[in-house]
């Protein structure tokens, strides 16, 4: 177990650490259950799971409030949970139920909760990047003190929106943190093929903003690097690009046969499971006992079981809902 590598320089309070642990466990169990229930036919459409990448969402969003914004991706469940979106509402959304956070109209790829500053998962690769610039422009113009964090994958770093967004953020000195979750693959295509840069963070240099690579499996490292970028944005010192090297434990989507990765590669990363590493760090440092963590695990398991039970029992939306919410007024 790679506990040593997670024993980062950041000193966090017990409450913060346990909250972060709980969030990461929530994401993991949420995703494992989503995978199982997708296979059981309970989730329509496409599902892209975030398991393995929890340290990124949680290491960053634990430093944000509802006054801050995030934009997300098709692999967005982890970002939602880390930003505090209602979990039972998310489960119901996956099932297309009326009690879903988007009334069942968006589904997995479009979960959003604007009140929580969660501006949506996104079905368009790179679609969230300019939106984050816009959210940061709002925060700056209205003087809210908020920042925008823009999550996107390695695949999105090749889209025009990435380059246009970084340039805009730089010239307008926007309070935005661009977070590239580099999990090694854009769908089935390895980053070493699809991307000209050995580190995507290098692309920050073209826009003369800070670019940092961080171990995305190490929640302490993510927390520390993001903390600096977020603080810089809050101070009015402008945008940063953070590249978190991470890994997804599942395929691109559920149903992907994942022939482009080897079992050995997956196993190597599972040896570095970010939740297991945090678990060991917490226990080794005497912050909490095994029993206390087991209590958290059990609480989250119960919470997710209850959420699934409620979602299964909830009604689908009325057909008339098909025609609503297109405009504010028409």
């Amino acid at each position, binding site marked *: 177990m790679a506990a040593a590598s997670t024993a980062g320089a950041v000193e966090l309070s017990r409450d913060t650490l346990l909250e972060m642990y709980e969030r990461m466990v929530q994401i993991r169990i949420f995703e494992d259950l989503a995978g199982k229930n997708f296979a059981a036919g309970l989730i329509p459409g496409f599902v892209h799971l975030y398991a393995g990448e929890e340290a990124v969402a949680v290491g960053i969003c634990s430093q944000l409030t509802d006054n801050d914004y995030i934009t997300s991706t098709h692999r967005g469940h982890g970002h939602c949970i880390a930003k505090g979106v209602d979990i039972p509402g998310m489960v119901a959304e996956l099932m297309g139920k009326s009690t879903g956070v988007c009334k069942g109209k968006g589904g997995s790829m479009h979960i959003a909760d604007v009140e929580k500053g969660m501006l949506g998962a996104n079905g*368009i690769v790179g679609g969230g990047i300019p939106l984050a610039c816009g959210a940061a422009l709002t925060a700056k113009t209205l003087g809210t003190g908020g920042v925008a964090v823009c999550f996107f994958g390695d695949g999105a770093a090749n889209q025009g929106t990435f380059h246009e967004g970084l340039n805009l953020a730089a010239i307008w000195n926007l309070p935005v943190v661009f977070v590239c979750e580099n999990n090694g693959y854009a769908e089935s295509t390895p980053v070493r093929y699809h991307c000209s840069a050995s580190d995507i963070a290098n692309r920050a240099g073209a826009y003369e903003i800070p670019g940092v690579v961080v171990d995305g499996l190490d929640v302490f490292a993510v927390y520390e690097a993001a903390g600096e970028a977020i603080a810089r944005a809050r101070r009015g010192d402008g945008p940063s690009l953070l590249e978190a090297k991470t890994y997804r434990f599942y395929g691109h989507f559920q149903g992907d046969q994942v022939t482009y990765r080897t079992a050995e590669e997956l196993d190597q990363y599972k040896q570095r499971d970010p939740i297991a590493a945090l678990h060991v760090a917490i226990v080794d440092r005497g912050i909490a006992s095994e029993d206390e963590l087991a209590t958290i695990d059990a609480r989250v398991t119960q919470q997710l079981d209850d959420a699934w039970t409620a979602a299964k029992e909830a009604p689908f939306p009325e057909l008339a809902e098909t025609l609503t919410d297109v405009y504010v007024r028409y």
Partner: protein
Amino acid sequence: MVAAAATRTMTYQQAITEALQIAMREDPTVVLLGEDIAGGAMVDHLVNDDAWGGPMGVTKGLVQEFGRNRVLDTPITEAGFIGAAVGAAATGLRPVAELMFVDFFGCCMDQIFDQGAKFRYMFGGKAKCPVTIRTQIGAGVSAAGQHSGCHYSVFTHMPGIKCVIPSTPADAKGLLLSAIRDDDLVMFFENKVLYGTKGEVPEGEDGIPLGVADIKREGDDVTIVAISRMVHQALSAAEALSAEGIEAEVIDPRTLSPLDDETILSSVAKTHRLVIVDEDNPRCSAATDIAALVADRGFDTLDAPIKLVTAPHTPVPFSPPLEQFYVPSPERIADVVREIV
């Protein structure tokens, strides 16, 4: 009379794969570009093999025969690779690019409509752009708001673009061959719900000409013009109506641009009634375009108002009951026919 080609039963997906294979064998300038159309680029154990063969497996197996120099995996950069396909088409290649879902046209539309579609006109007829852009359309698999649209009406609106909307495996093969061989920019709209559907497909290398509608069912009482998957919904409705003594003629335009005006007008002249079934959104659409055609040039032949059965003016909802409500059903089509017969 030429003897009809022998046929085999194939899926819509297999028919498309076969057309791509024929086109690549006959013309070395045909290259494929798209996101994960092979998949697994630079993966050691997949040097001459594919990981995906496209998200739906439509291009599976082609990299084994033609290699990665002709089956090009691209980064997720629609403006980049669609534009490169357009540029390559203008300079001597005959690319077939895959826009994974038509909804992604927003990421690359400049390269399609402002560049490729206008080259020939703006350059005084001195350029051509023989590119085919294959893309997936349609609701029905809960792919939600950004992966379920039809949007062929948007492209039909634009001069310089040809629009092909096959509804059967045979049409998919024949029309794709013609699209690839065509010297203009062609959008080829594959309905994701139809990939697994089966039909008889001719052997051989013949294309089906662009701009020729197909009468999928003959009838004297009402003309139903239906597009893509809606052809099948209309045929189901026609069967139900037949039991009531109403014989519908179902016309599949097969291409929206060019549009086979004469087949539609002739049919309406015979039946005196027209229902148009279109899964695209209803404003400024293929449906309204065909309605306008008949109102303009066939008004005197009509005995009843033209009726449209379309998706509503909304994005595609995720929740399955809502999505089912969104897509025109055989029941809705039959009800509308009954209103005017």
